[in-house]
């Protein structure tokens, strides 16, 4: 068992060199890498958080859009229904008018025909009456006897 002063001094010099080496070439690069990794992990975590937040936001937005779309679709449907009802209503109205017009027209026609027929009939009856009168006159002219008959005929028309 011995403590040797030259060994102590030598060892101290070696120790000093080792510490200097560690301080210059070992410690800084490794701690720098550790620090960089720490920053990177922090950034990664922050990015993940941001991603989650934006996902949440996006899904909320899409929900909202879906809701709006649904409401809009409902509105469109309602409007379309209303419009269809109006169209049917309008069509009904037009049809009714048309029908009335047709009927009116037909009535007019019938009236006209009837008038025409009456006219014809009156003419024919007149002719017939004249013919009948001529025949009767050929045989016996007795106007007084037959005047009431002719008058009655004419009145009937």
């Amino acid at each position, binding site marked *: 068992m*011995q403590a040797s002063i030259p060994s102590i001094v030598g060892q101290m010099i070696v120790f000093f060199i080792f510490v200097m080496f560690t301080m210059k070439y*070992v410690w800084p690069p490794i701690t720098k890498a550790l620090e960089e990794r720490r920053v990177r992990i922090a950034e990664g975590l922050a990015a993940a958080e941001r991603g989650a937040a934006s996902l949440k936001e996006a899904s909320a937005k899409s929900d909202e859009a879906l809701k709006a779309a649904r409401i809009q679709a409902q509105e469109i449907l309602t409007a379309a229904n209303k419009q269809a009802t109006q169209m049917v209503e309008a069509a009904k109205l037009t049809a009714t008018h048309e029908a009335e017009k047709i009927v009116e027209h037909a009535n007019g026609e019938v009236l006209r025909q009837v008038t025409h027929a009456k006219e014809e009939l009156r003419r024919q009856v007149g002719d017939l009456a004249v013919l009948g009168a001529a025949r009767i006159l050929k045989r016996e002219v007795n106007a007084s006897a037959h005047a009431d008959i002719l008058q009655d005929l004419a009145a009937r028309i």
Partner: protein
Amino acid sequence: MASASPTPAEYVTHHLQHLTYAGDSSFISASAWHVDTLIISTLLGLIFLTVFRIVAVRATAGVPGKLQNFVEMIIEFVDNSVKSSFHGSRAFVAPLALTIFVWVFLWNSMDLIPVDLVPKLWALAYGAAGHDAHHAYIRIVPSADMSATFALSISVFILIFVYSFKGKGAGGFAKEFLFHPFGPYLLPANVLLNTVEYLARPMSLALRLFGNLYAGELIFILIALLPWWAQVIPGLGWMIFHILVVTLQAFIFMTLTIVYLSMAYEHH
């Protein structure tokens, strides 16, 4: 070890002889070089620096490899230890603590190599080189040599003054040394107490480490004296216990260094 089997006393003494260059065998030698301690500790330090330097060069902020992971674990452990008690710039103190921790750990772990292995090989090599194999001395545990432990603790002792001056200035240091803890009227008592306190630090640092590892080595040597069948259980037990000692002593040395430096650096 000798040709005729040595007596236990001879065996133990032989194991406790340093491989020296020149010098005498006095307790504190001014001329002897402990070649084994110097070479082995330097080699261990170079292993430490090589491994850590490789990692430092390849260090990536991305996914670390296994070696980088391991080294980063040690560095973060040391950095946290320093951070918790030293509040100045860590640019020097943290690498210092790292060097101390890993280097002392490697020194101590030399104690886990079977006590006879390296001396036997050394004796063979020494004999093969044409010398007397009986005088092939070698001790491979640097921390079981006071020269190594005092080299560290004296370095720390010097750094204590450096950091005292840095933190408080020469005046502040002198004031604390003269007036602390009893006030200016008890100046001699203060000086006495502070002198003892300051001297106790390197002594206790060096002797604690040395004592633990020297005792550990001695017990391994004593276990090696037992018959082979009786060595297994005490050898195993002491070995397992020693794994704790190896780590713990390295940790204690590092922590005390940090604590002493932070005490020196900060005002009281």
